């Protein structure tokens, strides 16, 4: 049924979203560390 397919897609996109959030947090932290070193 289309509902199951939607849930699956939603889970996939959500997992991707979570991964992106983690990457962004990591990158942002590194950026701030580097910025502090420069200042």
């Amino acid at each position, binding site marked *: 049924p289309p509902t199951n397919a939607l849930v699956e897609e939603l889970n996939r996109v*959500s997992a991707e979203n979570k991964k992106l959030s983690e990457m962004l947090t990591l990158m942002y932290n590194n*950026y701030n560390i580097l910025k502090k070193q420069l200042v």
Partner: protein
Amino acid sequence: MDYDLNTNPFDLHFSGKLPKREPSDSGSEDVMRKWFVKDETCMLQEELTRVNSENKKLTETLARVSEKYSELQNLFKELQSRENVNFCNERKRKQDRDEFVSSPIGISCGGTVEKSTVSTAYFHAEKSDTSLTVKDGYQWRKYGQKITRDNPSPRAYFRCSFSPSCLVKKKVQRSAEDPSFVVATYEGTHNHPGPNASVSRTVKLDLVQGGLEPVEEKKGRGTIQDVLVQQMASSLTKDPKFTAALAAAISGRFIEQSRT
């Protein structure tokens, strides 16, 4: 750069937002089920759209942060390399300057063979002459000057013009005890032809081996004995008794010769 990282990758309470299925015992159960399914699908669709849009936003933000991070990293590397170059140059300059200062004259540093050959030479110089250049037969390149606490006259540092193949260095400073002299301290031995014959009169003292005892005479220069002889001659000629005695001796010699 500020980014809101409070993303909501997946709404955990999303299932609670879905319409609750009420138990139905009526004949219109199929219609109701279809309605629920349709409603659930709509909500799932909406949630998927929201998460997708958030996903897109996160990707864009990540790209921007990555770009900024790369720029900052490049800047950091550039500054670091520039600082390294400056540090190396400064250290080299300081090393050149301090080589003589850190090793007192006459005391071998023990670092290299060159450092063990430290010698000092005195040059007569007019008080008005502030150039601190001495004619010792070699060509020199000045690379620094400083004033020390113990002596108000500036101290000049020179490197042999054959540098870097010849590592001899010298420092020149007006003597604190007798300002009519400049003192040149040499470090190392030249590895090329020696000085010209037409050099000024100097006395070289080997301070490494024998303290203040004069031991070496440079080619074409007088020894300490020469200086002493000159000083004695000068003082004797001023003594009228000595002059009379010398005149008598010479005249006596002449008379003796005329008799023979």
